[in-house]
């Protein structure tokens, strides 16, 4: 079973009087088939946690484990290749390349990741499920906030990653869309057996989550676990 873990992870920025402890001995896990929420106010360390989970920066202390193997010590091309193959990022904004049509966003994935992407049948199923099958020739600038977010999710899914890390994916959405995206993530986690981690301060996502962490001032606590 795919599993993403943080063991006793701390992250410190700066030194002396400028020292900021963004994460303080965090223990965390996200499993395949589950939608994991990390809730917390702005400045609580959510984004730091997400970037460490995704291998974009290293912890000051502790370990990041993927399926029991250390990931935090991977750098450069190895880390790039791992992210490309195993981790799909869905970000609050700028997720899509502005000068590529929706169809070309997927073609870009094909250009850099030659194998292991979704086959045409599963890809078309995803497009239908996300309701974006008629948007393939549109540019990101022609999409609404909700449509952009769904395309970003589809793009992340297209590379067929084991883990989906989403940063404030509902920030630009109205309540109806929030529910839609929450159900979508839940669906992806359960039907496609992926570990979906969503970092947010949007409490409307709680109902769909299998596991909920609260992060306050860099300290994490498990609130709900199935």
């Amino acid at each position, binding site marked *: 079973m795919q599993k993403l873990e943080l063991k006793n992870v701390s992250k410190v920025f700066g030194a002396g009087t400028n020292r900021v402890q963004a994460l303080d001995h965090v223990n965390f896990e996200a499993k395949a088939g589950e939608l994991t929420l990390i809730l917390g106010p702005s400045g609580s360390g959510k*984004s730091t946690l997400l970037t460490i989970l*995704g291998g974009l920066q290293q912890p000051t202390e502790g370990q990041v484990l993927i399926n029991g193997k250390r990931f935090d010590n991977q750098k450069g091309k190895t880390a790039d290749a791992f*992210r*490309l193959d195993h981790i*799909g990022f869905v970000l609050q904004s700028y997720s899509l390349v502005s000068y*590529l049509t929706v169809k070309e966003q997927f073609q870009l994935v094909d250009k850099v990741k030659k194998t292991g992407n979704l086959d045409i049948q599963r890809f078309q199923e995803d497009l239908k499920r996300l309701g974006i099958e008629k948007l393939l020739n549109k540019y990101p600038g022609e999409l609404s906030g909700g449509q952009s977010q769904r395309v970003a999710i589809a793009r992340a899914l297209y590379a067929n990653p084991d883990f989906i890390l989403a940063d404030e994916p509902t920030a630009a959405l109205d309540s109806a869309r929030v529910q839609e995206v929450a159900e979508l993530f839940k669906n992806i986690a359960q039907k496609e057996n992926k570990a979906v981690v969503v970092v947010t301060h949007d409490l409307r996502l709680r109902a769909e989550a299998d596991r909920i962490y609260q992060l306050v001032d860099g300290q994490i606590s498990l609130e709900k676990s199935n």
Partner: protein
Amino acid sequence: MFLALHEMKKEKLRYGLVIGVILLVAYLIFILSALAQGLASQNTNAFNSWKSQSVILNKDANGNLAQSMMTRNQVETASESNKGEIVGLAQGILKAGNARQSATFVGLTEKSNLRQNVQLSSGHWNNNDNEVVLSDKLKDQGFHINQKVKMGLSNEEYTIVGFAKKAVYNMAPVVYGSIDDWSNIKGVTGDFVGSGLISSTKQSTTDGSLQVLNKKELFNKMPGYSAQTQTFLFMIAFLIIISIVIVAIFLYILTMQKLENLAVLRAQGIPSSYLIWNTLAQTVLILIIAVLLAVVLAAGTALIIPTAVPMSFDPRLIATTAGLLIVTGIIGAVIPMRIIAKIDPVSVIGG
């Protein structure tokens, strides 16, 4: 290339403007190069058409062949160790009726090898004294075959029997005639037999009153030649530097504008080498399009430019300049490529 092509396709106006500016700079460089070469050839065309490499001339002439005069003794001494041909140069006024034209008389021996490489555009070579072959530039001034003309200090009349191509020396059209006529036109006594010995090979002399110059040295000694060519060279060099700066500024601005996008792509695991390669490909594409359009524009200009403008659109020169522009333009992409190499995805996501 994928990202580069799609970005340029989507942002046509933006990249059109970038290409337009580089095109104009490249066009200006081509025009200046053609002008530099054209003006330089006004000094050197005749000498180059003789396919010669060196000249022996009087040391007192300070390297100016037209001012040099060699005595029979000097020529005989120099000829002992060299196979140069005697030529006589005289700058003077060509007169026909009321028409006056500054020209350089070049006196050659009847069997001169130097003639072999000079192409005639009409008529034939002078076979007798008092016959001359004029630069075909003088055709436009109304000179014609069988016309009687006077030249320099001579009161004799000379008959035009032909016109020669590329017959310009030190900015003045050349009048080819016999070496015997040179004395009259120059107004010198019989002891002086010519201006110098010209050869297609290296020459040397032990005569302290003579000087040996190779082709490059001879050209550089021509009044104004060196200053003119170096001025153009500096202008072209500065324009190439300006083109590098333009490419660098445009690519820097374009890269900064899409930095967030690029950071997200890095976060998604797209290697920086892929993004750098795309930027490089985009730069090369922009430069090739701009330079090719500039070549087309320069070729169009060559077709319509009046013949009085001394421009020489040499395909080899344009190809070299175009290649240089593309290669140096790539230097302009170094800064954006460095920025992309150092993109930190965390800067977009936060944390």
